[in-house]
């Protein structure tokens, strides 16, 4: 399953990963090999088999009571942030 250069570029764009010109063919090669490898799945007969989303069958989501349990820790959390002003996380200007 050989991927083209365009495909790699479009995957990298979707995943927001910058690849250098040197890296691109390397990823193109390894991704193609991986896809070739996982292509073995085609062999399996899975007609009428349900996809397994969770390893333990028959469980359903627990519901939490509607209670406020949190307090304001934003000053502490924002110590980890690369750029903050007036309590806001900053990113380069977004034009909509």
């Amino acid at each position, binding site marked *: 399953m050989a991927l083209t250069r365009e495909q790699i570029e*479009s995957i990298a*764009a*979707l995943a*927001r990963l910058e690849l250098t010109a040197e890296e691109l063919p390397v990823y193109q090669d390894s991704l193609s090999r991986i896809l070739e490898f996982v292509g073995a799945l085609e062999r399996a007969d899975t007609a009428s088999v349900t996809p397994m*989303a*969770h390893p333990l069958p028959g*469980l*359903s*989501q*627990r*519901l*939490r*009571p*509607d*209670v*406020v*349990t*949190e307090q*304001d*820790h*934003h000053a502490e*959390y*924002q110590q980890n942030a690369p*750029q903050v*002003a*007036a*309590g*806001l*996380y*900053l*990113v*380069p*200007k*977004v*034009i*909509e």
Partner: protein
Amino acid sequence: MSDWETVIGLEIHAQLATRSKIFSGSATAYGAPANSQANLVDLGYPGVLPVLNGAAVRMAVKLGLAINATIAPLSVFARKNYFYPDLPKGYQISQYELPIVAHGALDIVLDDGKVKRIGITRAHLEEDAGKSLHEGLPGVTGVDLNRAGTPLVEIVSEPDLRSAREAVAYMKKVHTLVRYLEICDGNMQEGSFRCDANVSVRHAGEHRFGTRAEIKNLNSFRFVERAINYEVARQIDVLEGGGKVVQETRLYDPDKGETRSMRSKEEANDYRYFPDPDLLPVAIDAALIESVRATLPELPDQKAARFVSQYALPGYDAQVLTASRELADYYEAVTRAAPADPKLAANWVMGELAAALNKESLEIGSSRMTAERLAGLLKRISDQTISGKLAKEVFEAMWSGGTEADAVITARGLRQITDSAAIERVIDEVMQKNPGQLAEYRAGKDKLFGFFVGQVMKATGGKANPAQLNELLKRKLGGSA
């Protein structure tokens, strides 16, 4: 060339009125300082996990029951993957293939009074994103994640709407419904209720849909109507000019009154939906459904039908009065206190009261006049103490002064004159003072009747009982002295 048909589907996002967020225990209250209601789960910190708020599930079920939809016994949360600063995890937890509610419908009343059933394809639960702030920050955008994680129900209509007016009627109906159900406060200024409109056009009679454009984040009924009308005209222009409508997302600019193409979110929007492995399927059994059903209030359509039969009101009045539960409750409180004339009560609630509220931009809940006090005024109209016209003056005095009807009537001496002899005396005086007009009237100029009515009213300070005045004036002007 005007055989164009408009096809519209609306996606309404209603913020559910839970105390805490859908997947975390943070508060949902509006207006808090930036990022003061965003905990580690909301911020998408490494290692955090979502836990589902049961109240959000119950509210979605409540909505589903109110629109006669199917409630899925098992529904699944899915990740919608894309990058945006107000989306901390880089994905939104939503529902995709197995939503909690499907195949419902809502009836709307069109401008001509006809009822149209609008299909609702599905309604699903999802988390809201944060807010990006662009103003006042040179070169940067500021992100406030207080809103991130607030529960939303996304209500998707079938493309059954055929005009901007229908779209607005539908949106208003949904707005009324979610407030009746107390699952959403419907506050559009605060963003609790927003709408995306999918708009396309096609030649009448064609089966296939035209290419549609999506107009995002419309947060007023007026904007929805204008945006759709603009977009329809724009698409027709494009097509009639030989071009093709591009499938894209557009924003409505209320200042310019036009829609324009959105830039950033358009790039490569492959959302790569897959079931969220951090959440298990949501199981809803008959017991849960029945316990939610027991909390359903009388729904708007049911209440409107009851108003028509119980109060003998026309359909239009019933629709207006049941637009909100608070207004309907107010009206019923008025009729309980003044049961003699429900139509009169309807006229006053929809008329004077509504105007007074609008003037000060008040909701019915903040009315300066209680239902009981208004009823007091209405009783004085019904029992002929004052005329309808003077009642307006009394109303204004009651509204600003916070007083009872009787107090105002007495203080200003506004009691209606119902004493025939007294009215006759005034008529006589007026006839004496205006011999010319009297002669003209008797000579056949019927229009002058109104002049005499006006003069008697002026002389009595508006207090002459109109019905009696009419009868007596007819008799006296008619010729008998």
